[in-house]
C-alpha cells in the first residue's frame, strides 16, 4: 500500500492508524497508562525525525521495533533508578484490567511482545524474529512458553 506523501496527511495517517497499536504495546510493557501515552508520543515524534518509508509494511515493522525498544529503555531506566510506588490512581483502574495485567506480568517483556505480535497483529514467528532481532526458533519457543504460562489457547488445540 502506498503511504500518503504530504506532511500533514502523513501525520494524520500515522496517528490514526498506528497510535492504538503503539499504545497497546507500550501499555502491556509498562502497565501505566500515562507512561504508555508518553511512549506513543515519543515514537510518533521519531516518525518525524526517523527514516522515511514508502511501504506500509516496513513502516509498521519499524514502529513496532521502535516501540519495543523504547519500552525496553524506559523499563531499564526504571530498573536502575528508585521510583516512588505507584498511587492507586496511576495504576490500571478496572479490576478486570488489573487481573489481565497481573496475568501478563507473569511473562517477560519479550514474551508479552511476541504474544501480542503473534495473536493480535498476526505476525509469524519468522516475521517477529526479524522485527525483534531474534531467531525464529527462539520466538517460537518463547511463544510456546508464554502460552504455557498463561494457560490459554490450549483448550483450542493450538
Amino acid at each position, binding site marked *: 500500500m502506498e503511504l500518503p506523501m504530504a*506532511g500533514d496527511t502523513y*501525520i494524520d495517517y500515522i496517528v490514526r492508524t498506528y497510535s492504538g497499536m503503539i499504545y497497546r504495546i507500550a501499555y502491556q510493557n509498562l502497565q501505566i497508562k500515562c507512561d504508555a501515552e508518553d511512549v506513543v508520543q515519543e515514537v510518533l515524534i521519531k*516518525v518525524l525525525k526517523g527514516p522515511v518509508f514508502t511501504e506500509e509494511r*516496513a513502516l509498521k515493522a*519499524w514502529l513496532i521495533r521502535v516501540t519495543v*525498544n523504547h519500552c525496553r529503555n*524506559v523499563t*531499564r531506566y526504571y530498573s536502575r533508578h528508585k521510583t516512588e510506588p505507584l498511587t492507586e490512581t496511576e495504576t490500571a483502574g478496572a479490576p478486570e484490567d488489573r487481573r*489481565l495485567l497481573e496475568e501478563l506480568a507473569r511473562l517477560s517483556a519479550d514474551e508479552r511482545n511476541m504474544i501480542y505480535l503473534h495473536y493480535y497483529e498476526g505476525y509469524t514467528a519468522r516475521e517477529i524474529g526479524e522485527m525483534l532481532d531474534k531467531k525464529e526458533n527462539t520466538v517460537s519457543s518463547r511463544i510456546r512458553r508464554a502460552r504455557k504460562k498463561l494457560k490459554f489457547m490450549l483448550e483450542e488445540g493450538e
Partner: protein
Amino acid sequence: MTKQEYIGWLDQLSVSEEKQEEWIRRLKEEGGKETAERRQRAPGCRWIRTAVCCLAAAVLVLGAVKAGDGKPDGAGDGPQSDTVTVIPEEKEVSRQQLESLLEETGPQEMGMEIRRIQAGGKILEYEVKEMEGDKKEEAGQLKGELLTSYQGPEETGRAYRISGRTGLAYLFLEEGGHNYLGRFFEMPETGTFTVGEMLELVYQVRGPEEMHQVIFRKTNVDNTERGQSIQVPEVSLTEEEKEQFFRMVEKLVSLSPEQQENREIHSAWDVYGETGEVAKVLRFVDIITAEGDLIRFTYDPVQAALYQGGYQFFSEMTEEENKWMTETAQIDLSAGTVQWKAPEDGAEPVTGKEAEENPAGSFRNISELYQYWTDHGYPDYVGDVYSKDGGTENLVVSLTGTEEERKAARKEILDLLQNRKSVSFQRAAYSRNDLCTVLDEIIQEMSEQSAAGTVQIYGAGLGWTSVNGTVTGFGESKKESRVVVTVDASVYEEYEKRYRERYGDRVYVQAEEEAPHHDLAVME
C-alpha cells in the same frame, strides 16, 4: 486467561479521539513541513540502516528521561526553532531540551550559555561557551569534544560532544563514584560497561560503512601488580570482519534487561592463573569512526570461556559466526606465555584408546559440540562446561547421575567427537537444565520485585563466585556451577533460608550492602 479475553482486552485498549487530535496537532507543530519535504526527496529505505537509525533514536530518547522525578519527559517541550536557542539565565531546562539545543548547535561553534539545568534532582550550573581550538582538550579524541564540566562538592558533571557525525552532546553526571545517568557517560581509557551501555555507545555508528577502522588490542593485565600490562600488537579488522562485528552488535542490542542482569554478577569476578595469582585478560575493541571519534569497549575472553552460564553477552561472542572474537583467547604473549588454567579440580582427561581419533564423530571437537549445545540446548546429563586453559578448545564437561549413568553419558559424548583429546570429564551434582529452571524462577521473582518497586534481589546468574577475591566453584571439585543470587544484606538470612528450603544447595545466596549501580561496571 482465554484468547478471546486477551484479544477483547486489547481491542478496548484504544487511544481517545481527543488524544489523537492532540498528538496530531503537536506533531504538525513539531515537524510536519520537514517530514513532507523529506518524504518527497526520499530515495527509499534500507531496512538495516533504518533499524539502526531507529535504535540510535531510541537511545536518544532515553536521554529524555527526566532525572528529577524518574519518569520520561513529555516530548512536546523541546525547542521548535531551527535557529540556536539561547536559554535565558536561571531558567531550568530539561535534559531533553539541552540535548536538542546541543544537537541544533552541533556542528557550529557553541554560542550559548546554559546556566542552570535540573538533573538528578539537583540544580547544576552549566556553561557551554564558545568552542575554541585550544579548549578542545586532549580527551576530546577519546571522549568527543569536552564542551563543559561541572565540579560540585560531591558530584561531577561533564558534557561531551561524542560524535562528530551528529554533533550531539552527551551529559555525564557522576556522584560518589557512581554514574547516575546511565547512557550519559564518559569513556575512560579502560573499563567494562554493561552491555546496554556499550551498545548504546557503539550505536553512534550507524553501520560498517561509517567505521573507519576497528582494532583489536590485546592486553594482559596482571592485577597482582596493578598498572603493569603487556600489550601485543593491534589487529585491525578486515572489511568483512567489520561487517560481522557490526551485525553482532546489532544483534546484541536486543538483549533483554534480564539477560543483561545475568551478566552483572559475573563482571566483578577474577580469573586465576595456574599458580594462583589473580590475573585477567582483557580485550579492547576500538572503533574509530570516519570522523575520528574513538569508541572503545572491553571484554574478557577468559571469562567468556569460563562462564558461559548466564553470560549471554559473551556466549554470543563464542557462537560460530562470532568465533573470530574469541579464538585468540589463548594469548601467547611475546614476553612469555601466560597459561590460563583453572585450579586442580580432578577433571579426568580422555586417554588411551578412548582418546583415539574417531572419524565417525559428528563434531570435530568438544568446542563444536559445546557450540551445538549452546544453540540447541544441553542434554540433561550435563552439569556444565568450562575451560581449563581459558581457550575454547579444551573443555571440561561435568556429568550428573550415578557412575553408570555418567559412564553412558561419557560414551555418548565421545562417540560424537572426532578429536577426543580436547575433552575432560568431571562429576556434577546438578544438571545445567535443572539449574536454569531455578534461575528462571528467581529472575521472574526479580522482575516482579522490580515492577512492584520492592527490589531485594540485586542479581542472579549461573556460575561460580568470588570469595575474598578468590574464584570458587561449588561441589566436591569446587568447579561446579550453582545459581548465585545477590540480595540486599538486610534480607540475606531470610533469602538464604528460603532458597535453601526451596532449592537445596542449588542456590548460593550472597549479600550486598547496597544495590549495585549497573550504569558503569568497572572491572578491578
